[in-house]
């Protein structure tokens, strides 16, 4: 073999291998592009966002005039429908008339809607920012029953690119807004100082747009809260806010905590025979769930007209597993012995509750391995005893958290079943 033949042969080999290399990269690129394409296709496969069946979560509330509103968010827009017959039929879908922005709407996170008695409609949501796990609490107000909304504003006043999410909102008939959320500003500052952190903080904001108090106050209520469970709150008989959340005790023990925030001055409290202002949250659960992670399971609170606090929660601790119900007549300082609810072996989880006079209703979901189930249990003696659990509905393609909402003296369960539809029924 001559030298020229060798060169030709080597050249052929090099060309050949380069071709193989190029082909391999084409395959790789194609594979990668296929992956990206697959992602795109999966996203594009999402159905018509104006249809509630496409939503992952739904928020339902009765307005003071008795209309039932339901709200969902898809692709940076919020939509609502109104029913004048308690959910039998709904209006056409309306888009909330604000500019598009990202809206957290899955699992424990979802937009909230509330009303005053003067055609005021109040919206709050968490809007994720460009950096992972950062978001702002956003708010918009309508004074014309949802026809138009104010330009959204940011409720958290720290102007930091950090976590603010899991918003909950209550509005009185007179338009007093109370907004709570989990806030990472404290953790953010500690991180800057190189100090260790664990969890978020609980924040409360107040405003009244009807009375032209349009700048939200920001008050820190607690530190070391769990970072990924919804908050629950209700007004007690004094008009004070009772807030239930998952807290981090000791070495990552995730238990529920309760704080009642006095709405009035100390002098007013004394004259109205209020409980003394509470400084430290009461620990509610003692199930000893030790987890350095995300339970993704918040609790629920409802206070009835004798000022008894009724609570449900979920834990998977060494000392308590499953759903529990308990009540308190001293704002959580002492509690009745927790009652187990639902079948632990059937994945009983995501409890919600509401009170109506002496009626206590609890709903939760279970799973059979193939079917999602919605279960209900009622007490008619203020929580002393409960009826046998009753299966209310099933779902085959996913399950949102169930909620109990009230219209006058009737309680309704609201359960969204993605791809199947939103289900609402009087209990």
């Amino acid at each position: 073999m001559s030298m020229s033949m060798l060169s030709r042969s080597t050249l052929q080999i090099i060309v050949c291998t380069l071709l193989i290399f190029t082909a391999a990269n084409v395959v790789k690129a194609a594979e990668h592009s296929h992956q990206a394409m697959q992602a795109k296709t999966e996203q594009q496969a999402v159905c018509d966002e104006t249809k509630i069946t496409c939503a992952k979560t739904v928020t339902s509330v009765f307005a003071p005039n008795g209309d039932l509103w339901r709200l969902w968010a898809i692709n940076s827009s919020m939509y609502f429908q109104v029913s004048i017959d308690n959910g039998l039929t709904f209006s056409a879908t309306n888009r909330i008339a604000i500019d598009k922005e990202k809206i957290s709407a899955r699992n424990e996170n979802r937009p909230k809607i509330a009303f005053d008695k003067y055609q005021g409609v109040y919206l709050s949501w968490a809007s994720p920012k460009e950096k992972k796990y950062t978001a702002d609490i956003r708010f918009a107000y309508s004074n014309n029953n949802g026809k138009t909304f104010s330009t959204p504003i940011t409720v958290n006043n720290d102007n930091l690119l950090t976590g603010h999410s899991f918003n909950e909102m209550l509005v009185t008939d007179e338009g007093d807004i109370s907004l709570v959320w989990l806030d990472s500003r404290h953790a953010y500052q500690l991180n800057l100082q190189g100090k260790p952190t664990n969890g978020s903080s609980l924040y409360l904001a107040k405003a009244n747009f009807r009375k032209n108090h349009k700048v939200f106050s920001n008050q820190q209520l607690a530190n070391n809260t769990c970072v990924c469970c919804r908050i629950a709150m209700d007004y007690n008989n004094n008009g004070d806010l009772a807030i239930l959340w998952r807290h981090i005790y000791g070495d990552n023990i995730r238990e529920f905590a309760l704080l009642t925030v006095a709405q009035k001055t100390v002098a007013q409290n004394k004259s109205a025979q209020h409980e003394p202002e509470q400084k430290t949250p009461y620990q509610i659960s003692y199930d000893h769930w030790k987890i350095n992670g995300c339970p993704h399971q918040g609790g629920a609170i409802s206070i009835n007209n004798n000022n008894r606090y009724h609570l449900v929660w979920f834990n998977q601790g060494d000392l308590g597993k499953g759903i529990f119900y308990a009540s308190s007549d001293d704002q959580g300082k002492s509690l009745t012995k927790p009652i187990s609810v639902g079948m632990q072996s059937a994945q009983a989880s995501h409890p919600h509750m509401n009170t109506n006079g002496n009626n206590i209703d609890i709903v939760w979901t279970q799973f059979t391995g193939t079917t999602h189930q919605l279960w209900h249990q009622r007490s008619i003696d203020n929580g002393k005893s409960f009826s046998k659990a009753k299966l209310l509905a099933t779902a085959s393609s996913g399950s949102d958290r169930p909620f109990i909402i009230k219209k006058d003296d009737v309680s309704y369960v609201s359960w969204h079943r993605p791809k199947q539809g939103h289900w609402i029924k009087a209990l």
Partner: protein
Amino acid sequence: MKKLSYLSSIFLISFCCYCYTGQTYASSIAFDQEQFSLMKKQNKGKQWLMLLWSVDCPACFKELAVIQQLQHQQDNLAVVIINTDANNETTQERIEIIEKFGLSHVSNFHFLDGKSEQSRYIIDSNWYGELPRSYFVESNGNFHGKSGLIKPAIIAQWLLN
């Protein structure tokens, strides 16, 4: 000389193959009962780790970072990563996170949209979805589930030969 040409071609082709496999992007596979059985079959006789995570779980990212670090110490870690979001809306985010942690070539699976509970049930009917969730699988096939962030030293001890 013919032998030299032959050896050159073997070397070059091997080099190209190395370049290719070193940068492979493996797609995430939709998780179901069949895939789970296959996964267990493929890891039969091995001591391996099954790590479940979500884009909404900050602690999960710390665990993914641990796997990322261990990769630098040892190739072919016996680890399977499963995303539990079960939500088409998070698909792109899921892919980006896995790429960010350099875990694209690890065995990746994801729960299908709306199949969160079904998928969980296949793995463990006593697991409620809290995250991160890690299953330490012994070489005899026994699963040991643990919720929450696992200490890096424990993961390293389990995975590094």
